[in-house]
């Protein structure tokens, strides 16, 4: 069971309080009607599924209720950082050793 830092509560808490919400920074097209079937399929289904640092979303569903973003190494399951929804995607190289 992971320990996850909620950037809103500013606490590191057991995974059971959180719900995974898949890859982050996949924005829903502003005008869906204008996008092609390919692009819509890309938005709906295609995922990078990175083996290594993955930008992903979690929701502190049993806590503050907020969706937020995280960077987690999917090989070690260690979190490199978590940040609020809407914050810019942090640059990987800038990320130091995972949160404790």
């Amino acid at each position, binding site marked *: *069971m992971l320990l996850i830092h909620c950037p*809103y*509560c*500013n*606490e590191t*808490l*057991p995974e*059971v*309080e959180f719900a995974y919400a898949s890859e982050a920074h996949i924005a829903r097209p502003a005008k869906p009607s204008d996008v092609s079937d390919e692009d819509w399929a890309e938005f709906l289904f295609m995922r990078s599924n990175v083996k290594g640092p993955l930008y992903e979303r979690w929701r502190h*569903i*049993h*806590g*503050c*209720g*907020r969706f937020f973003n995280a960077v987690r190494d999917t090989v070690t399951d260690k979190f490199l950082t978590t940040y609020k929804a809407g914050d810019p995607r942090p640059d990987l190289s800038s990320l130091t050793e995972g949160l404790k």
Partner: protein
Amino acid sequence: MTAPISSFTPGVLAHSDAARVGFAPRCARFSLRARGDLAPLEAALGLSLPTRIGQRVTAGERQLLCLGPDEWVLHAPERDGAAITAACAGVYADHPHSLVDISGREVSFVIDGPRGAELLTLGCARDLDSIAVGEGRRTLFDGATVILWRDGDTSFRLDCWNSFATHLFHLLDTGVRELAAESL
């Protein structure tokens, strides 16, 4: 236990030398959501809105706990319910927010006794030491979302939705006996 939760009467439900579980009297409960300038709402409610999650304020018989960046839960005497609704409605036009009456949604258990804090470790995965006395948190207890109010070192209130109450009480009741049976 198939009795409806509405048939629970305030008072002690289970107790041992180790811990005690009581049923709290009904009260008016509101979920308040707001952003931006909170002053008008604070004026309307007669208490300040803490902005750190987990922080609590008390004004007279009204207690308010910050649950999220734009979310608070408010407990007040039942008789205050209408006044609170009216007061908030009064400022809505200029300061839109969401006030939802959840008085009927939840009940509260009171947990205390020398090992009250340990009793909660049967169902709560988070470190209770991270909830300071006088604060509170929304968290998970035995699979159900609950709000824990820490009123003292070993005394807590646990708010849960009606339909989870008997299930959660069963665990608390088991724990009350289990803890008492332990040779310390």
